[in-house]
C-alpha cells in the first residue's frame, strides 16, 4: 500500500504545476466567453429591436472574435475535467460523491445548452428567423454561464466542505444535503465574484479593441456603440465584483483564516487589524523568526477588522496565531491538530482492520476516536506545523495587484462610458494616450483575473479539501517523470495554440468587419 507520508514531493509539485498550467490557460479564454456572449446578445437585441443593419454588422464582428476564443477555451476545459481523475485520483474518490453531481448536472444542463445553440448562433443567420436567432444567442450566453456555475460550486465545496458526512467504510465524503453544497455562502460568493470578473474582462476586451479602431480613426460608429454597451455592462459588473469580492473575503476570513492572513501579509494577528493598501514584504520574514513582516507599507489600522467583522476592534488571526496557536481566541496550535489528525488516520485504519476481523467492540472504539478527531483529518498528512502556511508573498502580491487593477478598471469604464455617451470620444485632442491606455488595459484585466485564481488556489495550500485532505494525499500514485512529461506536452500544445489564437485574432481585428459600414443586410 502506498504510504502517503512518503510520497515523492516532486510528484506533488509537478501535478500541481500541471493543474495550474491547464487552469491558467483555460482561464485566459473563459472570462471573455462568459462576458462577451452577453455583450453580443445585447447588441443583437438592439439589432432586432431597431432593424438597423449596422447593429447586425457589429454583432457579427464580435461574434467572430468570440468564435476564435471559444474553441480554445473548450480545448483546455476538457483536460481540466479529466485531470481531476488522471492526476488527483485519490482526491477524486474522496470527494467524488459530492463533486461528481455538480459536474454531471453541468454536462446535462449547461454544456448541451451552450453547444446546441452556439451552432444556431453561428450558422443560423440565414436559416432561422431573427427572433429565433436572438433567442439562440441568449441561450448560448445562459449556457456558458451555467457551465461556470457548477464547477464553481464544486470549487466552493473544496474551500469549505459542507453538506456531507465522511463514510469510514468507503473512505469518502458522502453528500447529505445538496442544497447545503449548492447554496453554501462560499460557493455563492465564488460563483458571483468569478463570473462578474469575467464580465469585466470581456467588457475591457471590447473597449480595448474599440480603442484600437478609434486610434486608427476607423469603424468609429462600431467603436462608439461597442464602448457604450460594454461600458455600461462593465461598470455594473465591476461594482458586482467589488461587492462579491468583499463577500468572498469575509467568507475566507471565517473559513480559511490562513488564506486571509497570507492575503494581507498578517503574521501576528490581533485586535484592530490593519488593512494593507500597498506594501513590500520582508523576504527574510518567516513564521518562526522575529523579523518585521514588511519593508514598506501603507496600512489602515482597524480597517481589516472592520471589513471582516464589522467591528474595528475585533480580532483577526495571523499566520503565527494559526501555526503556534492562540489559546485566548480558541486557536489550537497546528502541532496539536497534526497529532489529532494522525490519530484520526490511525483509528480509521484500525477500525477497518477490526471490521475485517469482525471485532465489533474494537471497531466501535476506533470509530469513536476517528469521529472525534475527524475535523483534523487532513493535518495528519502534514509533517510539521509550518506546512500549513501557503506561499505568503505570492498570495499577498497577487491579491494586492488584483485589487489595485480592479480599482483602476472602475475609472476606465467610467471615463470611456462618459466620453462615448457625450459623443466626445472621437473628437478628443488627447485621444491617442487614452486609446493606448484602453488597449493596455486588456492585458491588465487578464492579469488581475488570473491573479484572483492564484489567491484562491495558492492561498488554500496545502489543502485540496480544506482541513480534510492535503494535496500530497490527494495526488495520483504515478511516477513524477510521467507527470513532468505530460506537463511539457501540455505546455507546448497550449502555448502553440495560444500563439495561433492571438495571431488570428490580431489579424481579424486589424482587418475589422469586412463588409462596409451600414451594409450587409
Amino acid at each position, binding site marked *: 500500500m502506498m504510504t502517503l507520508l512518503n510520497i515523492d514531493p516532486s510528484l506533488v509539485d509537478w501535478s500541481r504545476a500541471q493543474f495550474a498550467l491547464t487552469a491558467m490557460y483555460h482561464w485566459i479564454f473563459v472570462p471573455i466567453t462568459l462576458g462577451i456572449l452577453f455583450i453580443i446578445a445585447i447588441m443583437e437585441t438592439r439589432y432586432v429591436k431597431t432593424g438597423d443593419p449596422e447593429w447586425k454588422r457589429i454583432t457579427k464582428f464580435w461574434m*467572430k472574435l468570440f*468564435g476564435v476564443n*471559444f*474553441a*480554445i477555451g*473548450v*480545448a483546455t*476545459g*476538457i483536460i481540466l475535467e*479529466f485531470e*481531476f*481523475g*488522471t*492526476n488527483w*485520483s485519490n482526491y*477524486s474518490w474522496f470527494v*467524488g*460523491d*459530492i*463533486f*461528481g*453531481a455538480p*459536474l*454531471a*448536472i453541468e*454536462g*446535462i*444542463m449547461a454544456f*448541451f*445548452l*451552450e*453547444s*446546441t*445553440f*452556439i451552432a*444556431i448562433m*453561428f*450558422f*443560423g*443567420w440565414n*436559416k432561422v428567423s431573427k427572433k429565433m436567432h436572438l433567442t439562440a444567442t441568449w441561450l448560448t450566453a445562459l449556457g456558458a454561464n451555467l457551465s461556470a456555475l457548477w464547477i464553481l460550486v464544486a470549487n466552493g465545496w473544496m474551500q469549505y466542505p459542507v453538506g456531507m458526512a465522511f463514510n469510514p467504510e*468507503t473512505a*469518502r465524503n458522502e*453528500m447529505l444535503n*445538496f442544497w447545503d453544497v449548492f447554496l453554501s455562502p462560499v460557493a455563492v460568493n465564488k460563483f458571483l465574484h468569478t463570473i462578474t470578473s469575467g464580465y469585466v474582462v470581456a467588457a475591457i476586451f471590447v473597449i480595448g479593441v474599440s480603442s484600437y479602431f478609434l486610434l486608427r480613426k476607423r469603424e468609429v460608429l462600431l467603436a462608439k456603440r461597442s464602448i457604450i454597451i460594454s461600458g455600461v455592462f462593465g461598470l455594473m459588473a465591476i461594482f458586482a465584483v467589488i461587492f462579491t469580492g468583499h463577500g468572498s473575503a469575509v467568507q475566507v476570513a471565517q473559513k480559511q483564516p490562513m488564506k486571509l492572513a497570507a492575503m494581507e501579509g498578517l503574521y501576528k494577528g490581533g485586535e484592530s487589524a490593519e488593512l494593507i493598501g500597498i506594501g513590500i514584504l520582508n523576504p527574510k520574514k518567516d513564521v518562526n523568526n522575529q523579523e518585521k513582516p514588511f519593508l514598506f507599507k501603507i496600512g489602515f489600522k482597524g480597517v481589516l477588522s472592520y471589513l471582516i467583522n464589522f467591528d474595528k476592534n475585533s480580532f483577526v488571526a495571523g499566520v503565527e496565531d494559526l501555526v503556534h496557536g492562540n489559546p485566548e481566541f480558541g486557536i489550537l496550535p497546528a502541532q496539536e491538530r497534526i497529532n489529532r489528525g494522525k490519530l484520526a488516520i490511525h483509528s480509521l485504519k484500525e477500525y*477497518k482492520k477490526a471490521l475485517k476481523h469482525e471485532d465489533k467492540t474494537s471497531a466501535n472504539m476506533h470509530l469513536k476516536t476517528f469521529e472525534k478527531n475527524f475535523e483534523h483529518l487532513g493535518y495528519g498528512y502534514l509533517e510539521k506545523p509550518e506546512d500549513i502556511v501557503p506561499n505568503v508573498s505570492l498570495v499577498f502580491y497577487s491579491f494586492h495587484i488584483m485589487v489595485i487593477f480592479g480599482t483602476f478598471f472602475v475609472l476606465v469604464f467610467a471615463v470611456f462610458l462618459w466620453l462615448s455617451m457625450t459623443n466626445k470620444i472621437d473628437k478628443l485632442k488627447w485621444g491617442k494616450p487614452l486609446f493606448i491606455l484602453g488597449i493596455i488595459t486588456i492585458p491588465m484585466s487578464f492579469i488581475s483575473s488570473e491573479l484572483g485564481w492564484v489567491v484562491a488556489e495558492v492561498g488554500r495550500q496545502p489543502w485540496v479539501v480544506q482541513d480534510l485532505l492535503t494535496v500530497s494525499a490527494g495526488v*495520483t*500514485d*504515478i511516477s513524477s517523470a*510521467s507527470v513532468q512529461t*505530460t506537463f511539457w506536452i501540455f505546455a507546448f*500544445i497550449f502555448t*502553440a*495554440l495560444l500563439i*495561433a489564437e492571438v*495571431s*488570428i485574432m490580431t*489579424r481579424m481585428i486589424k482587418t475589422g468587419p*469586412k463588409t462596409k459600414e451600414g451594409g*450587409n443586410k
Partner: protein
Amino acid sequence: MINEISLLFFQQYWWLIVSVLGAALVFLLFVQGGQTLIYQIGKTETERNIIVNTLGRKWEFTFTTLVTFGGAFFASFPLFYSSSFGGAYWLWITILLAFTIQAVSYEFRSKPNNVLGKKTFEIMLFINGLFGTVLLGVVVGTLFNGVPFELDSLNRVSWHGSARGLEAILNLHNLSLGLTVFFLARILAILYFINSIEQIDILKRSKKHLIYNTIPFIVFFLSFVIYLLIKDGFAVDPTSGIVSMQSFKYLNNLLQMPVLIIIFVLGVVGVLYGILNSIFSKKIYDKGIWFAGIGTFLVVLTLFLIAGYNNTAFYPSLHNINDSLTIQNASSSLYTLKTMSIVSLLVPFVIAYIVFAWRLINKKKITEDEINDKNEHTY
C-alpha cells in the same frame, strides 16, 4: 431491505444513463471518422472545405457528449473515474490530447495568420479521428478484458501495467473493438456526407469509400463479437460480492436478458441496412445515416449493458480479481444518485432541443455556394 433494493435500482438506472451516453458518443464519433477522410473524399480545396464545414457543424455535439459521459461516470461511479483515469494515465491522456487539438482545428484551419498553417490543423483533425476512435474503442474493450489495477483499504488506486494503460492496446480483443469503432466511424461519416452534402463528386467518392470501409468493419466487428461471446467473463456473486471467472459469461448475460438480444439484433440489422441500402440503391439514398446511426446506438448500448448488468464486474482487475469494480461497489451514495436522478429528468428535454436545433441547421443540404459565401460563418 427497501433501501438495498432502491440503491440497486438507482445503480442500474445510472449504469443505463452512462450506457446511453456511451452509445450516443460512439454514434457521434462519425465526426472523428469524417476527419480521417478529408483527403480521401475531398480532392479539391473546395471539396475539402465542404467536408470540413459539414463536420464542423457537429463537432461540438461529440465533444459535449464525451465531456458529459466523463462527468456522468464521475458522478455515478466515482471509483471507476478515480481508478481508471488515475490508473490508465497514459491511455486517457492520449485520448484527451487527441481531443484537445480537435476543437481549435476547425476554427483556426482556414483563418488568415493562423501561424501553424492549414495542413497542420488538418493533420490534427486526422490524429483526433484516428486516436479518438481507436482508443475509445480500446477503453470499452477493457470493460470486458480487465486492466491491472489494485485498490487499498482506502480505495486508492495503484497500477501494475507497464505503460499506464497503453498496454491495453496490445490486447487483440481490445484492439479489434478499437478498429471496429474506427471503421464504423468512417462509415457513419460517409453516410452523413451522403445525407447532408449536395455535390456530385463527393457523393460518388463517398459511395466508393463506403464499400472500402465496410469490409474491414465487418471483419473486426465479427472477430470482436464472436470472441466476446465465447470468452470467460467476470461474474459477481450477488450476496458475497466475490468476483470469479465464469465461462461464456457475456453470452449468458445476453441469454439471461433476452430483451438485449432483440436490441442487439435490431442494432446490427439497422447498421447493415443503412450501409447496404446506401451502397446498392440506384438513386442517392440519403437516409442511411439514420438506420446505421440508431443501429450503432443500440449495439453499443447492449455492449455496455452486458458489461455492467446481471452481476458482472464492469471494470475487472487483472491484478486482484476482487478489486474489480461493479456497479454496486463503485457507485455514489444513494442520496447522490437520487439527487442526480431528479436532474436526469431533464434529459428528454435536452434531447428535444438538440433534435430541434439539428433539424434547423440541416434543413438545407450544404452546397459549394454556401461554403463560398463570405457572409456565412465557415471554417
